[in-house]
Structures are given as structure tokens and as C-alpha cells.
């Protein structure tokens, strides 16, 4: 068995940051970069915030779906020269249908049978994640892949500070994505239905609605947002097939810290993680990076399992 969870992704990040270590206060720069990075983490976690946070599906394959979406974006960008963000939007309907099917399978095999669904569910999703990983390796190989677009590789100057443009783009898109999803869940009929199912499934059933169909729809949306999120993932840094393992920690850390299912909470939690990562990166070095999200997650689970910002 060969080595996994490579630090390459994070080293690329560090190279960016350490360029201007001497030109300005490294701590301030770490905080600014951390906030931008955090918004990006919110974008990749927000789907899990719906599927795990609201629906209680132990979706460990979420990061694997994310990486798969990144590879689809890479394929469209590489073969047809489509802008990565547009490619992300293009695959969104496909992902939505994929999500509907995945939830149906999960529901039929686990939730309907009742007992210890979560325990076997997590094993199931790990199996799915491994299958996706290998299929990507078999098709694209183990090398890192990246996309080309006009905004990748440039950076903006703010006084002494230089912010990579790709982080700015991902920041703007992530804020937009979070706002859209938060509005959808609070303003639309279906969005409210999803939150109602999360709060009390039995009550929804008594009102004459079918909770399973609402949850299936919600899981479809949770998977559909991975289109844009996957585009951001490959815009921010190159992607390799086993990258999902590093993102298990990041996404679950964000969702648990956010207090399961809160959209604004997800954004705040992701920013906390982003800032924590960049500060540790600046102070201790890239080799400690993989542990930060997991250590935060462990701490939150041990001290405040209901999340920092959650009410449940």
C-alpha cells in the first residue's frame, strides 16, 4: 500500500504565502489569506452541511464526490477549453440527478431497514469513496491536475500585500453560493420543507407530506452544489485523486463546528478553520497542516459536540 494524504496541496499554498514574508506583517497576511481560504472551505463544506447537518446522512464520500466533480471540471476545461466555473455550472444538473439516485439507494438499503443505519452507512460511504478514488486513478492517473483560466496565476496588490486572484474569485463565488443556499432554505417552500424534515420528520409525515421525497430532493441539492465547489477546488490548487482524504477532516470539521445544518454557521466555522490553518502554517510550517482541521474537529467533538454555534 502506497503513501496517501500527500502534503503537496498545502505546500503550494505555503509557497504563495511565504513570497512576501519580509514585505509585511506575516500575521496580518495569514489572517487575510485565512479568511479567503475559509470562505473557500465554506463552499466545499456547504453540501455536507445539508446532507450530514440537516439530513443526518453519514456522508464520508462527500469529499470524494467533490474531487470527482473537480475532475469533471478538469475534463471539460482540458478538452473543450470551457471556463472552470462555467464547467462547474454545466455539471450541476448531472450531479443533482446523481444525488437523487444516491440518496434513494442509501434510503432503500439503510434508513428503511432501521437499526444501526449510521454505522453501516459510514462503512458504505467509505466503500463508495474508495471506488471513486480508484476509478479516477484508473482514468486520469495519479498525477496532479489543474485547470487554465484567465484569473489563475495572477494576483492583486493591496499596499504591500499580494492576494492571488484565484483566491479572490473563490471568495466571491463561495459567498454567493452560501447566500443562495441560505436564502433557498429560509425563503422557498421546498427549502422550508427541508428544514422541517430536519427538525421533526414525524410531524412532517403527520402533515401529509412525504419526508423521504423531501430528503431525496435535499440530498440532490447537497450534491448539486458540488459542481461549483469542485470547480473552486481545482481553481484554488491542483487536485489529485486522493485529495478527498484531507478534505474529510476539513469538511466535517466545518460542519460539526457550525452546529449541524446552519448555513451562516458553516461560513463562520469555515473562516475559523481557514485562519487557524494559515496561522499555524506561517508559524510552524506546512508539515503540520493536515492535523489542524482534525485537531479542531477532535476538540469540538470532545468539548462541545453540539457545535460552537449550534443550538441542537
Amino acid at each position, binding site marked *: 500500500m502506497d503513501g*496517501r494524504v500527500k502534503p503537496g496541496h498545502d505546500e503550494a499554498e505555503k509557497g504563495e504565502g511565504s513570497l512576501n514574508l519580509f514585505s509585511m506583517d506575516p500575521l496580518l497576511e495569514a489572517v487575510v489569506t485565512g479568511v479567503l481560504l475559509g470562505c473557500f472551505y465554506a463552499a466545499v463544506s456547504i453540501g455536507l452541511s445539508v446532507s450530514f447537518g440537516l439530513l443526518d446522512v453519514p456522508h464520508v464520500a462527500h469529499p470524494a464526490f467533490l474531487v470527482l466533480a473537480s475532475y469533471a471540471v478538469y475534463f471539460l476545461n482540458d478538452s473543450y477549453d470551457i471556463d472552470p466555473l462555467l464547467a462547474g455550472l454545466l455539471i450541476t444538473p448531472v450531479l443533482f440527478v446523481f444525488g437523487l439516485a444516491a440518496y434513494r439507494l442509501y434510503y432503500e438499503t439503510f434508513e428503511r431497514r432501521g437499526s444501526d443505519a449510521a454505522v453501516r452507512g459510514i*462503512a458504505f460511504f467509505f466503500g463508495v469513496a*474508495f471506488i471513486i478514488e480508484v476509478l479516477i486513478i484508473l482514468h486520469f492517473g495519479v498525477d496532479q491536475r489543474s485547470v487554465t483560466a484567465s484569473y489563475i496565476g495572477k494576483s492583486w496588490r493591496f499596499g504591500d500585500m499580494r492576494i492571488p486572484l484565484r483566491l479572490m474569485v473563490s471568495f466571491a463565488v463561495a459567498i454567493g453560493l452560501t447566500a443562495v443556499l441560505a436564502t433557498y432554505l429560509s425563503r422557498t417552500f421546498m427549502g422550508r420543507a427541508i428544514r422541517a424534515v430536519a427538525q421533526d420528520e414525524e410531524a412532517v409525515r403527520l402533515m401529509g407530506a412525504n419526508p423521504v421525497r423531501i430528503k431525496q430532493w435535499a440530498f440532490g441539492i447537497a450534491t448539486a452544489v458540488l459542481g461549483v465547489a469542485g470547480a473552486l477546488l481545482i481553481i484554488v490548487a491542483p487536485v489529485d485523486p486522493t485529495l478527498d482524504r484531507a478534505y474529510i477532516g476539513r469538511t466535517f470539521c466545518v460542519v460539526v463546528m457550525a452546529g449541524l445544518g446552519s448555513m451562516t454557521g458553516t461560513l463562520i466555522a469555515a473562516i475559523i478553520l481557514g485562519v487557524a490553518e494559515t496561522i499555524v502554517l506561517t508559524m510552524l510550517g506546512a508539515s503540520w497542516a*493536515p492535523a489542524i482541521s482534525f485537531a479542531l*474537529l477532535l476538540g469540538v467533538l470532545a468539548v462541545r459536540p453540539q457545535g460552537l454555534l449550534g443550538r441542537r
Partner: protein
Amino acid sequence: MMKQNAMAFWGAAVLFLGVVFLSTQLVGNEYWFFAGYVILQFIVLSVAWSILGGYAGYVNFGTSAFFGVGVYTAVFLIKTTGAPLAVQIAVAAAIGAILGFAVGLLTLRMQGIFFSIATIALTIVIETTVTNWRDLGGAAGIQIQRPPVTAPFPSYVQMLVFVQALLVVLAVAIARYIQNSWIGRGLQALRDDELAAECTGVPTLRLKMTACVISGALMCAAGAPAAMYLQYADPASAFNLNYSVSVLAMALIGGTAHWIGPVIGAILLGVTQQLLAVTISSEVNVLVLGVMLVLFVVGAPEGIIGLFRKRGRAEGKA
């Protein structure tokens, strides 16, 4: 009846050790020992895993943490004191027990998926610590020299196979004892309903701690000889998530209701993986692992022993 069972079990154990010992004396081809070692190691790991994951229902994804700590305990001892293999295994078991105790503390506040995620988190935190521990080779890994082999064994790997076979017997004997004693019944009660078990006077905390400590000690002990087996250790492979998922898959495929389940699962999946690694590639290996895990979790939730039991029950009724 019970006594007969016990005699049959220990007879089989002695026979098994005898066969392994004889084969180290008679079989010359070292490949069989390289492959056999890995399978035996997985038997120990999955039997140990199911003490907590099967009987108590706490799904531990930290197998690779325990395995890796076992490997690096051995590396540390070799580099600092040059301690012999038996000491390496004993110290690894002690440290595994302590780590198991720590995991046991996690169960105080978490159940279900939260416990599973916490154990993954623990694995990565420990891996990162070892990666940053320069004296243990850091991310690049560390080379280890094997000492000369002790008397009756023709080569060091063959001795390691016999040692791992001893660990298999130890692990299975412990799992069998737990299953047949009040500990196993208590664990099953808390697996079915922890609150109800606690209310009816089952000492759930003490039982969970016992299961965590024993399971952890066995996993670390199984990892310790791997340093000598590979003559090399690096954090990325010693703490590889593949160990966690493989071991979980073996236990679930075999079935966790009886100690024989993880043994069957480990042999089945271990042999398949060895064959695939030789004939195709390690990527396909992971693919087969994923597919088998999904198929069994969906199609045969009770594992192979569950399939046999169902058939047995159906025939009994007819």
C-alpha cells in the same frame, strides 16, 4: 459441552501453530511467508477491531492509528535501545492499551458516526505528530536493520510469521473468552441499547473501557513486528487509512457476531488482495476493497456467518 468446545479450540490452536512452525522448517520459497505474514497480521487486526466494533458496536476508524503507533513504538525502541522483538511487541501492546484508554474516553461523549469521525481525526493528528518527529525519520521514513535470526528459524521473515501466528492465537483466544463471558453479553447489551443497559445495571463505562484497552493493545502489538518485516517505516504508509478501511471491511464481510467472522473475512479479503497485488495492481486492490465493502454492507449486513446462520435457521424451521 463447554469443555469439549474448549478442548477443540485449543487443539485447533496448537495444530495451527504446529503447521505454521513446520512450514517454516520445510517450505523454502520466501514469497509464501511474505504473503502469509500480511494475512496473519490482518487476522489479528480484524479480530481485535471486532472486540470494540463488533461486540460493542463502536465503529473505530482508528485502526491505522493503533497499527502505526505499534510500528513506530518498535522503530523507537530499535533506534534507542536495540530491544529484542518480544520487548518491542510487549511495549507496543502497553502503549496501545493507553491509546485504547484515550479512545475509550472519547466514547463518553460520542456515539455512532461522531465516534467514528473522532477516531479518524485522532489518526491524522498522531500521523502528523510522527511526521514532524525528526528522530523517527520524519516524512521521508526510516531504515531498520534486522538483527541475526534466532535458532530454529531459517530466516527472519519466517520467524516473524511464527510470531504473528502466536498473536493470532492470542487475539482469537481473548475474543473468544470475551464473547463467552459476561463481558461479551454486557457489550452486546450496550450495543443494542446503551441507555437501557445502563439502567438495568450493566456497567457500560467499565465494559467500553475494557473493550477499548484490549482492542487497542492487540492492534498495536500486531503493528510492532511490521517494522522488522518491512525493514522500513514511513508515516504515510504506517498510518494509511487503507488499514482502517480494510480491517473494517474484513470484519463486516466475515460478520461480527462471532469471533470466527473477522477470521474468515480477513482470510478471504487478505488472500484476494495478495493475489490481486501480484497479478494486477494495488489500485485494483483498493477498488476490490471498496466494491466488496459496499456489496456486503448492502447485501449481507450480517456478513458471511450471517448468511450461514440464516440458512441454518431456515432449514431448522422446515
